[in-house]
């Protein structure tokens, strides 16, 4: 049984279709990465999985008893809201002090529980968000560009932490990432998204797929390649007939 099964999912934002007939499933224990240009519907996909957006068509099935931990994109905490890390992790309720200490330790920041949330550094904050996601002992961890705003060292160490968490807990990871070198080395499976699933497979397969190369290029030609991709959408792995600019359902 897969943890999450997405079937024929279309999502609209107002009149704009951001996702069109996406189908995918996440198996337990695997690391799946979603790559794709800005506005390709990556974040919308995660938001549908957590229930923050409603599908326009199709559905998302969660396996029975599957718990999901969610690490959002960079999060802004208003200066006017005083809150300690421990209190933040306790929300919305039902967490014990032991749960909190354990999650913070797993996230690599065991000493932060009394710190004020608004005074954390970017790297610390991301780890606290990770701890929050881990506290419910999730079967599936969703990461939405969790290393945005971190420097290269910070982001590398964040991904090491994720790897360690997975080894310790065996949870599956579905993440969005811009850092292709990380993606390619750490993922079991890569999904290339651009309003629909362009291509998917092991990193090696995806990296050599023409659709992927068209989106990300092979080095400096990326911007040009992206342009070509939009106008020459000739691959035939999907049955539906539409083009990117007006992804009809």
């Amino acid at each position, binding site marked *: 049984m897969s943890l999450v099964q997405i079937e024929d999912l279309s999502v609209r934002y107002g009149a704009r279709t951001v996702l069109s007939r996406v189908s995918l499933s996440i198996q337990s224990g695997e690391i799946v990465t979603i790559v794709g240009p800005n506005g390709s519907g990556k974040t919308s996909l995660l*938001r549908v999985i*957590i*229930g*923050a957006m409603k599908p326009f068509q199709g559905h998302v099935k969660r396996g029975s008893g599957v718990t*999901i*931990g*969610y690490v*959002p994109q960079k*999060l802004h*905490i*208003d200066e*006017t*809201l*005083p*809150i*300690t890390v421990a*209190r*933040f992790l306790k*929300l*919305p*309720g039902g967490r014990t002090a032991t749960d909190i200490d354990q999650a913070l330790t797993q996230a690599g920041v065991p000493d932060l529980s009394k710190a*004020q949330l608004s005074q954390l550094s970017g790297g610390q904050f991301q780890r606290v968000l990770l701890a*929050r996601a881990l506290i419910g002992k999730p079967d599936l961890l969703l990461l939405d560009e969790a290393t945005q705003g971190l420097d290269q060292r910070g982001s590398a160490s964040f991904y090491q932490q994720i790897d360690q968490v997975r080894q310790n807990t065996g949870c599956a990871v579905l993440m969005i990432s811009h850092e292709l070198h990380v993606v390619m080395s750490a993922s079991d499976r890569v999904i290339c998204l651009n309003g629909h699933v362009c291509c998917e497979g092991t990193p090696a397969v995806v990296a050599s797929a023409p659709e992927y190369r068209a989106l990300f290029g092979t080095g400096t030609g990326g911007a040009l390649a992206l342009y070509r991709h939009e106008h020459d959408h000739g691959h035939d792995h999907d049955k539906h007939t539409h083009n990117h600019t007006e992804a009809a359902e």
Partner: protein
Amino acid sequence: MFDDFMMRAALAGIGVAIAAAPLGCFVVWRRMAYFGDATAHAAILGVALSLAFSMSIFIGTMAVALLMALTVSVLSGRGYAMDTLLGVLAHSALAFGLVAVSFLSGVRIDLMAYLFGDILAVSRGDLLVIWGGAALVVMLTGWRWSALLTSTLNEDLAYASGIDPKREQLALTFALAITVAVAIKVVGVLLIAAMLIIPAAAARPMSRTPEGMAVAAGIIGMLSAVIGLRAAYIFDTPAGPSIVCVAAIAFLTSSVIGSLISAR
């Protein structure tokens, strides 16, 4: 003890301070200050309608405030910048309310009493309404506290925890409407937002937890009400504005002390 008008006034002020404290914190955290203002200004229209249809003023102001708050919630995110939208709605509601009141030729009403409050004229019945409303607001915010706090921090985190932020927003809107209806007699339409925001803002520098901030805001609000009333009595100044002045001085003091401590 309810026979003394000063005592009734003090109890009314304390009641409003209690309702305004937890709600005011959310107004500050969620950057809803203008939202509170718009809802409060709409209340004068509620006063006019209540008098025209001889309804209870509490019900009338609450209904219009609620309608205003819902309108703003629905319209937000539809193309207009929020501050423009609220500026338009708040002042239009106030203007329409004032015009509507002028049509009520048969009834003589003291407009100043609704604009700036008339705390010294609080009756036993008013007290009952104020404390009933305050209790309702405290229960509502207390009941939804964790869910509200989670959705205030981040809507997606709330969804991920199985909370619907839209429903929580509705609870907050409802509490806001009750508070406006309750506070109109005490500080008046123009200064209700002040009772929400100033005590909460004054509480911020001395708080480390959200709950602590709400309690501190309540204490500051209550002290402001009692001291403000006393000052109004001694210096023969209008009561509602005097209360807000004391709260403002509390804010100034706490900000200065707060920045001195953090500079050390």
